[in-house]
């Protein structure tokens, strides 16, 4: 099981997520995005399971539709998190290089890239 939904009442349901698949940060970021239409509470149910308690603020909401949107968003957030782990440092290096003072003579002599090679 990587995820499971338990309907607590018509307004409230609990999504259970496998901690070995989803990071806490990805779960929190997904919950954050849904805050405008729902009250979202993230907790640790056990060593292996996150619990996301979702209470709807609006009347006309389809539980299945919301669950689908939540899971799709969660996957994308997890991908973004994995990406950041993979090349977050590279992004920082590029930005650092972009704002570094430019020495025209060095560029002319092809020295700008010295020390950048990996």
């Amino acid at each position, binding site marked *: 099981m990587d995820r499971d939904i338990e309907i607590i009442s018509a307004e409230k349901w609990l999504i259970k997520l496998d901690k070995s698949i989803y990071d806490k940060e990805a779960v929190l970021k997904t919950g954050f995005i849904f805050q405008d239409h729902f009250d979202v509470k993230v907790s640790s149910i056990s060593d292996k399971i996150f619990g996301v308690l979702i209470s709807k603020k609006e009347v006309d909401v389809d539980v299945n539709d919301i669950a689908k949107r939540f899971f799709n968003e969660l996957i994308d957030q997890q991908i973004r998190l994995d990406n950041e782990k993979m090349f977050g440092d*590279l992004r920082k290096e590029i930005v650092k290089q972009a704002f570094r003072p430019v020495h025209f003579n060095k560029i002319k002599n092809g020295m700008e890239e010295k020390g950048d090679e990996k």
Partner: protein
Amino acid sequence: MEWKKKGMRNKKPYIILPYHFERFENDVLLVNIAGEFIFISDHEFDKFRRYELKKGEVTFLNLKSKHIVTDTNLALPKYLLATKFRTKKSFLNDFTALHIFILTLRCNQKCRYCQASSEDEANRESDMDIKTAKKCIDFVFKSPSSVIKIEFQGGEPLLNFKTLKFIVKYAKTLNKKYRKDLQFVVCTNLIKLTDEILDFLARHRILVSTSLDGPKEIHDANRVLRNGKGTYEIVSKNIKCAQKVIGVRNVAALMVTTKYNINRFNEVIDEYISQGFGAIFLRTLHPFGRAKQEQKLLGYNIFEFVKFYKEALNYIIDINLAGINFSEIYATIILSRLLTPFPTGFVDLQSPAGTGIECAVYNHDGDIYVSDEARMLAKMGDTSFRIGNVYKNDYEEIFDGEKLREIIESSCVETIPQCSECAFQIYCGSDPVRNYHTQGDMIGHMPSSEFHHKNYLIIRHLLDTIRENNPEVMNVFWSWITNRSIENINRSKALR
């Protein structure tokens, strides 16, 4: 996954470079750190992430050309991305270019949505005097920017024409020493326009930005004199006078969307074309001043605005395809950011925000604010974004001070929750003053932010239109970006 089978687990066939992504139906938009983008299918996206793309295949080569993957030395794409990113953020090079002068709070109109909370025409206490104007101009020329644009606002700035004239002449005198690209704009309702004023504007090449909400019925519903009389007739007459004397291209107009015109954008657009304007900026109500008090009467849901905005954009595209060159300014700004390597000068939507570092507002009393909205907020009793006063502080204290630094640090979308992962972040921006005013802190809460919803949905719509890649529509977009006619664009294409 050949590279896994062969025991090459640590030697992947290509390197993935930093990118953001957003899903569009069955496609995925991938945007590199400098804003170059590509659409690929869901299936290709999965293959790309699993390192299963073949090096010779089109998708791989397209991704490589956008610096989203590389199979060569990392140094070159890193260097190119850094250069492109620097270009995209080059609006930061020059520091404050736009200097807004509040010449007076007096106004001869009492518009229902007035954001500036204007005062009665007789209240001369809110006029900027010559001494303060001189002091402010001395501050302006301390900006390291090579471009200095002085914009006169109010109230109605022409009610303090004496100070306006002084500022233009004094700035021009100072500029003989500083040799900057000095520009002037006056934001006026044109009610007080006279031959003497027109002559001065023409002689000193001062651009005019006026207000026109649509045809008479719509315009007069909001934009009225203090006695309640509509202003459409006189504004129309004076737009023609101004166009005749200072040139059609030197007169622009702005509109504000209210309940009166939100579902009548086509009529507003027709009115702009009939008045000789080449562009329109479909703007939302700002949540300041009277506009906030009158929200129930004039306001609307932001999703409703976006719906009508999209319809209006289609209408404008059709007008262009019928042979009339006419653009929507907000779309042009976003399209320029999407389709060219360059930044655009739009202080309301950039990261870090333009507050203070791109734009400064000099109030009639010498107070300096980071934006016009900051000044409006002060008028509502909250001076959180007043960064100093020309009589009490020196330039460095104000523009290199802790207060401005804190504001700027709070306005980088790269660090704002939800924005930091957004694929549109390089095209978008933040408004710390608006966030503070509407949501209680400068960073804001994007899931409930109207500013976020508007920008996200419009950027997404424009990207979706680009994804469709209709050649005729793309020609219209390029004509807006390059400020050329569609015939001219077609001629250039034929010559290739």
